[in-house]
């Protein structure tokens, strides 16, 4: 099945440039992996997005021009309707030399990477029930690219604060991110996110709290930032920690960098940033037991 | 000869307009444009309205003040010319 066929009646008509009708005149400024300014929202969309993500306009420093994101109208008839019982949103991504196209249920998106980063989100949702998830699904991809541009990396991971330091436990779906997060909450530890965490400033790696999460850590955007304490590949079993070989660490980290890891045009950049992270931290494999008792492993030597 | 009960209509690919008293016929299939005079334009306009040949002759006779008998032969000849040129066809 070619790009967009699952979601659009005529994917060939996918717009190659940011044009169309805005929904309204509202603007929302958010800062996750850098400032982004969403333009063209209507009042309902603004409220829905603000309730979910907050509004970090005050945080945006004047020396950082925001990434402009146009929110445009698209007709419902353009999308294929299908029964979504038991279906989980998944995105079609089309990687091109200067841009990335996104097709999904009820929205399409365009992230222009060259000559400068800007984006467009087209949706048929006027700010109803599904708008926050549409907004988030699109924004996750944008954040991955914004992080990449600024030398950071988004990781599919559970982020846990231990002694003021962020421990990033990455792994594929089913590796135990949610289980570990639940154990952390039960043990009274603070959670950053149980799904996606953002590592920035790789000269002195830090973890920024971001609002992309599953059951734990769904908080609005905040300026909260923590030093990175460690990076761990997650596995369930008997409590244990062992050093990963550099090659396994490198490949498993890339495998856990959503969206950008499939982009053939940006591979070098992803690899460069991953290597930089590995030069500061040597990831271990952290095997943890559902019964708990794994917290000492974070501070022990492998 | 066709009788006055025969009904014609313009062919599916034909587009027709009366503009400033002139009839413009476009045959889309072959990209041909024809221009017909005021009487021809009136005939095609009536055909487009689904009028039968006998009614058409009656209306044209009134409009241009011509005897119906004299007009009948001319209209039939004109319609068969248009039919040969694939502008009109008989309604089945």
């Amino acid at each position, binding site marked *: 099945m070619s790009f967009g066929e699952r979601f659009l009646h*005529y994917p*060939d008509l996918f*717009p190659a440039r940011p*044009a169309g009708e805005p929904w309204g005149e509202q603007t929302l400024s958010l800062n996750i992996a850098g400032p982004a300014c969403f333009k063209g929202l209507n009042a309902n969309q603004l409220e829905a997005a603000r309730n979910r993500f907050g509004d970090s306009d005050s945080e945006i420093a004047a020396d950082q021009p925001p990434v402009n994101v146009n929110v445009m109208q698209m007709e419902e*008839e*353009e999308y294929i309707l299908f029964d979504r019982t038991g279906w989980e949103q998944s995105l079609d991504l089309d990687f091109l030399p200067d841009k990335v196209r996104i097709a999904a249920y009820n929205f399409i998106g365009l992230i222009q990477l060259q000559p400068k980063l800007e984006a467009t989100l087209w949706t048929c949702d006027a700010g109803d029930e599904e708008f926050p998830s549409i907004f988030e699904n699109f924004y996750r991809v944008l954040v991955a690219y914004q992080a990449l541009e600024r030398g950071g990396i988004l990781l599919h991971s559970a982020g846990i604060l231990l002694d003021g330091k962020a421990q990033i436990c990455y792994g594929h779906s089913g590796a135990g991110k949610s289980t570990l997060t639940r154990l952390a909450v039960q043990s009274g530890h603070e959670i950053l996110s149980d799904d996606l965490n953002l590592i920035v400033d790789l000269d002195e790696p830090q973890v920024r709290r971001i609002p992309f999460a599953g059951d734990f850590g769904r908080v609005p955007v905040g300026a909260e930032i923590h030093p990175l304490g460690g990076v761990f590949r997650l596995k369930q079993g008997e409590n244990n920690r062992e050093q990963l070989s550099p090659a396994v660490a490198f490949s498993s980290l890339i495998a856990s960098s959503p969206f950008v890891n499939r982009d053939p045009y940006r591979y070098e950049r992803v690899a460069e940033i991953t290597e930089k992270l590995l030069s500061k931290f040597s990831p271990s494999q952290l095997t943890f037991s559902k019964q708990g008792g794994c917290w000492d492993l974070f501070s022990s030597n492998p | 000869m066709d009788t006055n009960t025969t009904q014609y209509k313009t062919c599916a690919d034909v*587009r027709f307009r009366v*503009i400033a008293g002139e009839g*413009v016929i476009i045959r889309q299939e072959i990209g041909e444009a024809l*221009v017909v005079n005021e009487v021809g334009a009136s005939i095609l306009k009536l055909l487009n309205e689904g009028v039968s040949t006998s009614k058409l002759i009656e209306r044209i006779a009134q409009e241009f003040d011509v005897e119906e008998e004299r007009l009948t032969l001319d209209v039939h000849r004109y319609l068969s010319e248009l039919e040969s040129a694939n502008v009109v066809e008989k309604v089945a």
Partner: protein
Amino acid sequence: MQLSDLTRKFCNENILFSVLLELTYRCNLDCTFCYNDRSLKGTPFRFEHYKKLMEDLLQMGTLNISLSGGEPLAHPDFFRIGALAREMGFVTRVKTNGHALRSRLLERLKKEVDPYNLDLSLHGASAAVHDRQTQVPGSFERLMQNCAEMKAIGMRFRFNMPMTRWNENEISEVFDIVDLFETSINIDPVITSRDNGDKAPLSLSSSEAGMMKLSDLMGKRRKAQALKYGVSENTGNDIVIPQKKHCGSGSSTVTVDPYGNVYPCVQLRRAAGNLHKQSIRQIWEGSEVLDEVRELTVRVKEWTAEQGESCQKIGFCPGTALHETGSATKLYPQAEMRVTILDKKSVREEV
């Protein structure tokens, strides 16, 4: 009376014969020189608005409707608008880049809209050049495949090509493509600024050598066609020059943008009114802008005659002149270049 005589009559008597509808500025390609003002805002024209407009146009005797864009197929109501135009008996042309016109979409277009013709945008004779201009990899190959499919189902099409510095060395190969599909092409040697005044596209304007080559090649093709079909070699020009006016801008044609603004033509972007506020008949009969443009085209006709034969032959566009120089009776750089070429050619022929 011939249709060409009739169109002169429509132009002289201000009869609205052809209307170009820019349905949307959305597009699935991203041509470097696109003139559309994508920042333009307003209340978008939807099916109900187009229905009312077409009903009025039918009353006014309009025959031709061109559905344009952006990419017109990207308008959510495209098929309803096209089908209604067909039902109302308009001769409908669709100006499209052809990128999406394959299989199901193509079949729908043929079945539901049955356009008189498709004007397909071609930007070169190779993927390297065409795709560079559309900024969509694979668009050349796709267009060629789609053309083959169109031909197989009997969809009539011809090509439109804006000539640029990038494709001017492929003109001969472009003609090979035209011949392969047994169709025709309209090559526009003039690249204009964007409608919002941005002059960036002008840097792609074709060179004098490119224009000279085009002129020579077209001359040769006309001669070859004259020999083949036994017709006069001077009949290859598509442009009908009316008697009293230089062109039909605001006299036999108007352009409507996606927000209902009415302009005298696609090049002359002075709004004569908005269809959300007035009917097309009210604008056509009462707009001062249209009256001014009608007078202007008479003056331009006289002015080109004063400039000499070459100026009358180049397809001088008052709208482009106004846009590029601020005056409708002033040669813009590309027109000047074409006059020079024609003058040189006529000297060469005399020698």
